[in-house]
Each structure stands twice: as C-alpha cells, then as structure tokens.
C-alpha cells in the first residue's frame, strides 16, 4: 500500500489584515458554492426517488416501462430516473472540485492552521489537566482508546498492526505527555489550573528524570567522549541548495551511518557532517547535518541522551553526550563566532540542533535551524534564529514536547497528515506520495515521510515558507569548500584507541 502526506503550515511572517480578509473571502465563496452544489445534489436525490414513485404508480402504463405509445404521455420514466441519478453524481463531483480548490487555498495561505493550533492547544491543556488531576483514570482511558484504535486500524489494514495503537491516539499525545511531565516534574501536585497557561511541563519532567538516568547511564556507558574526524572512502554528501536538498542529505547520512544506505563510504554510527561554504563577499558560512538516535551502546546518540536534551535546565541539556559531541565537532571544524551557521537534524539530531541554538547563542551565530521530527517546542531558541520545523501528526516523537511549536515570524512549522494511497495526479498539490513506503501502517517519523510532508508544503506557494527557504538558501548558496565528517564514541576511560586515525579529542562530562 502506498502512503501520501498532506501538509499545513503555521507560523512565519504574519499576513496583513487585508491579505487575510481577501483569502478568507475567497475561501468562503468557494465553500458556499460547494454547499449550494451539494444542496442541489440532495434535491435531485430526493427528486429522483419521487420520480421513481410516480413511475411505480403507473404499473400498466407503457411510459412507466420506458416505451412510447400513442395516446399515452411521452415521458420515459426509467430514463428520467437514471438521468436524475446521473445529475446527483454530476453535482457532487462539481461540489467536490470547489471544496478541494478552497482547501488548497486555505492550506497554502495557512488559513486552517492558526484556528487548528488554537483548538489543538485547548484539547491539549484539557487532557493535561485530566492527566494531572486523575492520572490513573486518564491512563486507563488512554490505554483503552489506544487498544480500540489498534483494533480498528488493524481491521482496516487487514492484518494485526500494533502501530495503529500509537497513530490512532496522535490527537491526545501532546496532552498526555504534558500531563505526565507535570506529574514527574512536580507541577502536577500544585493546583492543576496553574498549569493551564504553561507548555513546558514535559521539559520539567524530563529534567527530573534525567538527573537519575544520566548518572545511571554514565556508570554503564562511561562519560568520556571521544570525537574523531573521519574520512569517507569516497565523496558522499553534495552541496544542498535548499531545505529539501538538506533534508535529502540528512536522510542519506542517517541511513549510511547505520549500514542501510548506498554503502561504500565506511561511515558508521555516531557520525555527523559539517560543510563549509565560501561567498563572493569573502564571508564563510556553515551547515551542520545531525542524524538521529542510533541506539548503539557506545554512541553519544543513544536513547537515554534524548531525556537530557529535553530538560528545561540548559546546563543539563548541554551535558547530553550528543550535544557535547556536536559542539566539540563544531569547535574543531573551526567555525568562527561571527560566521553564519545553519543546523539541520532528525529526531534527536533536531533536539541537539535546538539545544545548541538555545544554549550556545552567545558563542555562535546560529542563523537557521531545521528540525525534522523533533520535539523542540519548548527549547528557548532566540527569535533572531530562524526555525523551520517539519513534523507529522501521528509520528509520536514530535508530540513528546507536549506542545505545539511557537508561531512567530521566524518560526515556521510544516505539519503533515498521513493517509493511505498514492497522491492523486489530478490534484497535484493536495498531497505528496511517500517514497519507499509500500507496506502497512508505520510510524511516520522516518525521513521519507517527513520529506514528503515538506515536499507537499513547499509546492503550495506559501509566502511564509518561501521566506524561510530564501533565508536558509542564503546560508548554503556559496561555494562548497569542504565537507568534514565527525564521529563520536563514549567510553569509561579517556584513553585513545591504538591506531586511531585522524584527530582525536577526548572530553569528560563537567
């Protein structure tokens, strides 16, 4: 089974009131036309039944049988009934065309998104309130909904697929995560309504948990970080010229370092890429590409590091092995404090990017951050840094921050909704087909799903997204001078392995 993604866009530069009024006006015009046409279809549906009833009242008349005979009325009831049925279909098809055109206008101009974001925030806060006040009952209800979603989804798919238990509860995940964070972080024990205005409960909870998990994991993994510059066996990443190109590179590197890519580079887990660009005016800029969790036992990009990165404590965030590793690689690559830096990351890689942009803003000039499937809503990224976030509704990971991303002129979020089937060639902007997804329902956290979300969004001609594209492209449109690759490893000792090639630096946790 193929899969497709349809995207909405939130944030970015606000429209003027006149622009909003114009788009809203036309959206209403098209929706009213669709409703008028649907109403006409309904009238013909009922009318067709009435005509058929008239026919049934004439059992002996040739007109009722569709035959014209002298002396009888020249009205051919069977053909008339069929014509009524065809007219219903014609009006419904026309109504559908008007509605889908109005939908395209609304999605391209983000008219859905602000209202949807507000409504979603209300649902999220209510679920968080319920979780904080009645944690046991809420957990039981959530489990029940999850089981039902799993059963319904599996029946529709025709096989048992537990993924539906996750994707079927995507509408509630932010609220549940937020409520859980409030409990773990101690905020749930206060008067619950005080949490209604906040959005960072999960980050507070993560900070509480990370105090224990980081120490425990250090005992197991060690906290000596070794950062090595590595050389691929052949040229690998090309110069990206757009956010879409950079996402493609991110996917390639992510797959390659886990042995699931093109192969032949020798790159393995715990590897990031740093690209240096030179510009005609003599300036230099950089792009840091950061794949996500690899889950290897001696990798700085293991699973427990995610918890530290989600903390509301900046020191704790920067103490995460993956953040330390990328920061060290950036230092070794020679990035100057006044040189523009763009970061792009998937999953944990995106959280690292948001952490660096938030906590090293006084050390580097972070111009643009692209996060793919990353829960970064509460990372305090300065408004001077542009952020482009790409998420899917039911991928779970992006909802782990318990909140929607900020909606501001310098932060745009592309949010995809995944549906079965390939994109309709007759409606090229309604959705994008996911490459390489031809099986049953899976979590849409993979880069192929996120790239499809971005591909659909970027085709809509949204001025907000176009503005972000131009801003990102300005960082990477120079001459690619060099691509360097950096690998991180964790150990209990600071000793460098014999025969280790390339530069090596070793750092313990502060």
């Amino acid at each position, binding site marked *: 089974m193929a899969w497709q993604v349809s995207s909405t866009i939130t944030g970015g530069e606000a429209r003027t009131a006149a622009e909003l009024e114009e788009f809203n006006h036309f959206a209403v015009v098209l929706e009213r036309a669709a409703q008028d046409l649907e109403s006409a279809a309904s009238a013909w549906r009922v009318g067709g039944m009435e005509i058929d009833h008239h026919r049934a009242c004439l059992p002996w008349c040739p007109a009722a049988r569709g035959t014209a005979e002298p002396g009888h009325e020249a009205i051919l009831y069977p053909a*008339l009934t069929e014509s009524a049925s065809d007219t219903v279909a014609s009006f419904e098809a026309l109504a559908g065309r008007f509605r889908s055109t109005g939908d395209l206008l609304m999605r391209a101009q983000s008219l859905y998104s602000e209202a949807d974001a507000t409504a979603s925030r209300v649902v999220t806060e209510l679920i968080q309130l319920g979780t904080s006040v009645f944690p046991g009952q809420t957990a039981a209800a959530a489990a029940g909904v999850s089981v039902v979603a799993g059963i319904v989804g599996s029946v529709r798919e025709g096989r048992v697929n537990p993924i539906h238990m996750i994707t079927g509860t995507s509408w509630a995940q932010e609220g549940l995560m937020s409520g859980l964070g409030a409990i773990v972080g101690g905020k749930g024990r206060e008067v619950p309504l005080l949490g209604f205005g906040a959005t960072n409960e999960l980050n507070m909870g993560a900070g509480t948990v990370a105090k224990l998990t980081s120490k425990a994991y250090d005992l197991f993994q060690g906290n000596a970080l070794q950062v090595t510059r590595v050389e691929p066996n052949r040229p690998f990443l090309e110069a990206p010229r757009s956010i879409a190109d950079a996402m493609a590179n991110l996917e390639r590197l992510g797959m390659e370092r886990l042995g699931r890519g093109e192969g032949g580079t020798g790159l393995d887990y715990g590897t990031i890429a740093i690209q240096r660009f030179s510009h005609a005016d003599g300036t230099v800029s950089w792009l840091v590409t950061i794949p996500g969790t690899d889950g290897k036992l001696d990798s700085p990009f293991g699973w427990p590091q995610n918890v530290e990165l989600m903390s509301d404590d900046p020191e704790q965030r920067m103490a995460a092995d993956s953040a330390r590793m990328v920061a060290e690689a950036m230092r070794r690559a020679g990035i100057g404090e006044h040189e523009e830096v763009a970061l792009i990351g998937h999953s944990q890689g995106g959280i690292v990017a948001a952490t660096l942009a938030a906590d090293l803003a006084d050390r580097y000039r972070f111009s643009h951050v692209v996060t793919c499937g990353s829960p970064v809503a509460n990372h305090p990224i300065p408004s001077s840094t542009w952020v482009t976030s790409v998420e899917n509704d039911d991928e779970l990971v992006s909802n782990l921050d318990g909140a929607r991303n900020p909606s501001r002129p310098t932060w745009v979020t592309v949010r995809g909704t995944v549906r079965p089937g390939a994109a309709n060639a007759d409606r090229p*902007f309604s959705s994008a087909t996911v490459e390489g997804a031809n099986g049953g329902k899976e979590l849409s956290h993979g880069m192929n799903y996120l790239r499809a979300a971005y591909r659909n969004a970027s085709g809509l*001609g949204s001025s907000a997204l176009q503005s972000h594209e131009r801003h990102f492209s300005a960082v990477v449109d120079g001459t690619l001078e060099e691509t360097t690759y950096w690998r991180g490893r964790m150990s209990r000792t600071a000793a460098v392995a014999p025969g280790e090639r390339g530069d090596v630096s070793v750092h313990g946790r502060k």
Partner: protein
Amino acid sequence: MNTTHLDPQRCRCHDTAPTTRQLVERLIARSEEALDHAQTAASHARTVTWSGSAAEHYRDTLSAAHAQAAGVREGLSATRRLAWG
C-alpha cells in the same frame, strides 16, 4: 378491470405526468441557480492575489470547474427533454 389497455386517454399517466414535469422544472430551476452561483464564484475566486505553481493550478482548476458547470447545465436540458418528450 384494466381499461388503460383499451383506452389510452383514460390512463393515469395523464394525471401523473404533469406532477412529474412540475417536479423536474422545479429541480432544474434550483439547479440552474446553483450553477449560476458556482460559475460566478469560479470567475471571482480566480482573481485572488497569489502566485506560483500552486496558484496556477488553482486558477486552472477553477476554469475547469466553470466549464464543468456548463456541461452539467447541458445535462439538465437533456433531462428536461426526457420529461417533456
């Protein structure tokens, strides 16, 4: 005893057909009004300030919808002919 077989002038179709035709005319009048509104909406909505490939597709679709509405209108004429013979 069924007399219609003998005398077509006494068939009930002469009572029922006018009712059917009135119904069809009412439906056609309502449909033409909806189609008028739809074609006006399609022409008007094309004037939105929006550029790019999605915007071009949007305008092309509205032009096609305008033409599609004209086709539905022709279908109504055919339906009328079926009612009136």
